[in-house]
């Protein structure tokens, strides 16, 4: 049968550190987005190029989406870099793996076997776990900065009430579960998509993979959107303050 690996394959070794093919692809995605960002920065404000205008529209639509959740332009502008980076990285990583003839064309012969040099970054649990960890840490950072350290600790350790103490304890568990949930959602979707495309290409190589590739494009965009919007929602709910009567207000 075909060789489907849950583990990523080590293809390169620099200074004694083995690198996986998913890491190489994520470096490629970062370089691509970096070049796009630098080009965007150095063009004038009203440039008629379609790529620059497209990026400007995309970032502005993301800002309006963040506004729809937070209702606060100041907070939206602070959150925009994190949320937009998650969205752009994940959507570029997912769509790059579906460009025909790009990621599956380069092979390298290692002692363990013949592997492809580039592979979709989100099909590896390390990339998605790193993204999930970063997302939860960003939530904690924003919460700490807005609430101050006493109220931040008061979210988790609340000694006024036995019920509130147990709720605070569950808050801590919930943060850990969020890391697992984020990483497994993204990993499961993308890895299962890869396995599906591989098996369909093995069974019927002509024409039939097309609807499945359309599905994978759709799933890639939706998963990137969901990751960004869920990060946004968790940041929003963690920066809301309780006033003394127990109602929640925005800051």
């Amino acid at each position: 049968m075909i060789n489907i690996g849950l583990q990523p394959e080590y293809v390169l070794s620099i200074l004694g550190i083995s690198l996986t093919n998913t890491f190489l692809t994520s470096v490629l995605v970062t370089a691509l987005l970096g070049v796009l960002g630098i080009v965007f920065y150095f063009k004038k404000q009203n440039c008629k190029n379609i790529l620059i205008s497209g990026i400007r529209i995309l970032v502005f639509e993301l800002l309006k989406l963040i506004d729809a959740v937070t209702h606060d332009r100041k907070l939206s502008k602070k959150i925009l870099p994190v949320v937009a980076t998650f969205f752009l990285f994940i959507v570029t990583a997912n769509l790059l793996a579906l460009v025909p003839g790009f990621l599956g064309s380069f092979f390298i012969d290692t002692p363990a076997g013949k592997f492809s040099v580039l592979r979709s970054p989100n099909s590896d649990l390390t990339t998605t776990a790193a993204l999930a960890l970063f997302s939860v840490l960003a939530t904690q950072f924003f919460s700490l900065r807005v609430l101050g350290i006493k109220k931040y600790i008061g979210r988790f350790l609340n000694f006024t009430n036995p019920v509130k103490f147990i709720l605070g304890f569950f808050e801590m568990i919930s943060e850990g579960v969020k890391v697992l949930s984020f990483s497994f959602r993204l990993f499961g979707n993308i890895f299962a998509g890869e396995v599906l495309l591989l098996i369909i290409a093995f069974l019927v190589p002509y024409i039939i993979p097309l609807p499945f590739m359309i599905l994978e494009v759709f799933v890639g965009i939706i998963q990137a959107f969901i990751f960004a919007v869920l990060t946004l929602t968790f940041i929003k709910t963690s920066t809301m303050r309780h006033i003394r009567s127990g109602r929640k207000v925005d800051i």
Partner: protein
Amino acid sequence: MTQDPSAFTMGIGTIGPALAIGMIGAAALIGMARNPENSEKIQVAMIIAIAFAEAIAIYALVVALILKFVS
């Protein structure tokens, strides 16, 4: 009972999320039909809720894949 535990995992594990996503969609449609000018907010909330429900099905899928591909 069954020879293939990964098939059984996927079969049982997707019943709950499928029901949940159907109920979320139905509630969102009722809300949108009752009040069409709030459609945008209801749609964003629906997508988030469906993402949470679908994640449970993805956990079942990951367990099935691990059972199949890790000996």
